[in-house]
């Protein structure tokens, strides 16, 4: 039987995404959904870049794309451009699509690696070619995908409207106390500053870094990954748009970290993610300001974080989602995605009145896989580079990586094999984009590669992609904005 009451604690992106998904999924059931948030506590949501899975989330909720883009000042995103990562002066794009197509049954990248004079790898990606030209068109049966860049604060507000229209009750207030049940150890109730007590059967902790329930009350524990991902601070700073809006997020490597640039309809989000072990806060701000395309629109928003994840993200009757569950820097735009994954798993394993600890165990097992696989993918960006201009990059190159990543790297370096897995966000094309974009080149070609028709087939693919990219409208036109 269905439990009766869910309380979502925290109203940022995670909280409202969770509330909206619950409201949609349990529409027509007696499940009572309440969200408590405090206007006094800011949310971390700085401009957010996403990966294509967000489209599925919105579509499931029945959200209209045009309405969503208008409400969140969103733009289209064909990939992430990584500047200066492999070497200074480099630029490569990680798209949401495969590269090329198999030739003679042999995966495309093997054929490309074995060919001389086949041009750049990115010439075999339609979304990259479109993005390089500032163009965008929604795929119409084409083999590529896209995501969005949008204002996460506006997205939360949009989902609040969605949720409240579907019966979610919003409560305003600061949580001052969490009461546990002596016998089960479950959270029984929270107390607000006003003295009011809110009880529930299930608590969703979306309270951000501090993990009000999951950590402060339930002591879930935290697994730190800072030895692999040394960045621990960020400064966010929006500025006005200048020039055309690229259908891309850009991540430019810096001496001790990297700077994001996320184009929205009304402004550009900027931020510097850096390691306090290698640079000072002032220097980091200076670096960001020096590269800002226009004068800042606000005061710098400073963030501190510890990369890692809660050892248990579901404890008793409390599930942590979003920053309360862990933190991975937004280098591959995975923050909202990990929220979405957690929500999906919660809905799959939604508790019943007969609580079974197996639900939590399975949730935790799967979320650990998700986090670890994204983590490995992020470490790849830092570890595989040839930058010799700072201590930070030398450190990242010399560090020991997790065995799971070392295994993947060994196989790719040997002969271009991309290790596959069932659970996990990034599939073969993503790994290929970063490997090849950062000069991780196999030592040996695939023995199947080559053959009479390969050169011609590749030239035809290249030409077709270039021609298609040229027919696409500009990104602004696709958004219906005046150029």
């Amino acid at each position, binding site marked *: 039987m269905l*439990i009766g009451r869910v309380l979502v604690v925290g109203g940022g992106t995670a909280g409202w995404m969770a509330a909206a998904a619950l409201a949609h999924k*349990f529409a027509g059931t007696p499940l009572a959904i309440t969200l408590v948030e405090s206007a006094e506590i800011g949310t971390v949501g700085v401009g957010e870049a996403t990966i294509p899975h967000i489209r599925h989330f919105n579509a499931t909720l029945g959200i209209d794309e045009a309405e969503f883009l208008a409400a969140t000042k969103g733009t289209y995103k064909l990939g992430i451009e990584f500047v200066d990562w492999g070497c200074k002066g480099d630029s490569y794009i990680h798209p949401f699509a495969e590269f090329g197509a198999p030739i003679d049954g042999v995966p495309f990248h093997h054929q490309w690696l074995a060919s001389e004079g086949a041009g750049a790898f990115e010439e075999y990606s339609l979304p990259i070619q479109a993005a390089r030209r500032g163009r965008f068109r929604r795929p119409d049966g084409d083999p590529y995908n896209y995501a969005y860049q949008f204002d996460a604060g506006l997205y939360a507000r949009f989902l609040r409207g969605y949720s409240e229209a579907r019966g979610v009750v919003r409560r305003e207030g600061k949580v001052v106390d969490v009461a546990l049940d002596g016998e089960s150890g479950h959270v029984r109730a929270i107390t607000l500053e006003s003295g009011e007590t809110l009880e529930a059967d299930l608590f969703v902790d979306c309270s951000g870094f501090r993990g009000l329930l999951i950590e402060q009350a339930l002591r879930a524990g935290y697994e730190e990954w800072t030895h692999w991902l040394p960045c621990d601070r960020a400064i966010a700073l929006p500025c006005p748009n200048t020039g055309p809006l690229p259908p891309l997020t850009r991540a430019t490597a810096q001496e001790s970290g990297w700077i994001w640039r996320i184009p929205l309809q009304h402004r550009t989000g900027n931020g510097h993610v850096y390691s306090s072990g290698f640079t000072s806060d002032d220097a980091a701000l200076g670096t960001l300001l020096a590269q800002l395309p226009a004068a800042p629109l606000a005061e710098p928003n400073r963030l501190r974080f510890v990369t890692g994840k809660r050892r248990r993200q579901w404890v008793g009757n409390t599930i942590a989602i979003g920053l309360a569950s862990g933190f991975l820097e937004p280098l591959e735009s995975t923050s909202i995605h990990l929220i979405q994954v957690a929500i999906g798993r919660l*809905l799959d394993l939604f508790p019943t009145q007969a609580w079974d600890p*197996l*639900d939590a165990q399975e949730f935790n097992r799967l979320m650990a896989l998700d986090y670890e696989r994204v983590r490995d993918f992020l470490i790849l960006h830092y570890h595989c580079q040839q930058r010799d201009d700072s201590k930070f990059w030398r450190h990242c190159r010399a560090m020991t990586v997790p065995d799971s990543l070392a295994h993947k790297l060994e196989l790719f370096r040997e002969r271009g094999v991309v290790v596959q897995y*069932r659970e996990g966000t990034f599939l073969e094309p993503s790994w290929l984009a970063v490997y090849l974009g950062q000069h991780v080149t196999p*030592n040996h070609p695939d023995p199947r590669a080559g053959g009479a028709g390969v050169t011609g087939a590749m030239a035809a693919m290249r030409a077709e992609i270039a021609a298609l990219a040229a027919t696409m409208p500009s990104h602004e036109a696709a958004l219906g904005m005046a150029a």
Partner: protein
Amino acid sequence: MIARIGIVGTGVAGWMAALALTRALPRTEVFIIATEGPDHSLGPFGPAEASLPDFPYWLADHGVDERELLHAAHGSFSLGTACSGWAGEVDWFLPFGTIGAPLATTAFHQLAARLRAIGQPVRLADFSLAAIAAASGRFVRPSEDPRSILSSYGYGLHLDRAGLAETLRAATGLRPLGSFRAFADDEVELQDGSRLTADLWLDCSGPAALLAGDSGWESWAEWLPCNRVVENWNPAEGIPPPYCHAGAFEAGWQRTVPLVGGQSGALFYSSAHLPEQPNAIPIVQGHRPRAWTGKVIALGAAAALVEPLHGWNLAFLQNALARLLALLPAAPSGPEPAEYNRLTAEEADRVRDFAILHYKTNGRAGEPLWDHARTAPVPETLQHKLDLYASRGRVPLYDGELFEAEDWIAVLDGQGIRPRRHDALADAIPEEALAQHFGRIRSLILDAVRAMPHHGATLRAEGLIA
């Protein structure tokens, strides 16, 4: 660089390997060496093979005409496996196709659990087109139109081994270079005394593992008690049923693969529970964790031997060949063999779990073999699946799974395992809507099956029977 690949074994496994390699590696020299005796290259499991639904695709990818093959191999079509005697008195069917359909986002078996909770009996196979068509002896190739209910299933093939091997051989255009006598120092000695070298050797010689025999075998006998097989062939007239049969009895089980003109049989039993039978072949179920050792790669039954409850031995080989081609070493002493072995073992372990599932969840009370199988511990990976299923009907899938969650659920449910809870959302659906949903699926299926030709008519239309 691999310039020469030698295959030992001229059974189905050897010829499948030869076909895959010659097509994928036109610039590599591939040769094959004959072995003596019956073809046990995929296991001594009767004179016919039954495939899973991915085999027709493999054939198409490798230029083998399905009709010609069916003709040469007295073949017929398969919609799944009928299992009797495993759950006690209840029979069940593992179909090659979907069972039911979700309502909103709630899975079909969760809906079924809700109906059962309100006292309404449900048999999952009644909501599978493949299962109902099989039970009524009907078959037609599935539709490619995803909107048609006729796209809700796939099909496997029943093929006589000799005809399959011969068809594959013809497709390769190869002839054996000679007959195997011995293997030493990475060289094969032929019966005529000549010696052959290769950069890689594929051991397709079956459980004898003429090349790979020293590389270590991990036995699964503690979980899979059958250690003897008797192969048999029963000539029969009439139309073969479009499914395999696996019938459990006190000391093991009997496999039946129907062909045009007869039935291929294999009796699996535990020698501790049945007096020795004439012509019994001893087997040790298990796998070779280092299937690839040095220059030798064990394939087929030389690499893994698991009683073929659901025709996975062909699928094992298909996947092993694809993996081998993706991991052909570019240089000596690279990481490819270790990765090949890791992936191969992962897949074997998952199939092992699927096989053990049939024993662990059996309903044959009062028989020593089955009582023990029900109570003995199983591998942790399987126990985790069983625990989660028992808790709320979920089946977690790991890397390397050959079977999807729906297949696991069909077996678990068929065996009579009922989760303690079902998804809460199923409770939110009004009973009337549930009944309507089930009724609609059932009538769609019945209408479709009524309009389907009999298996015999399809076989006749394709010229496979007179």
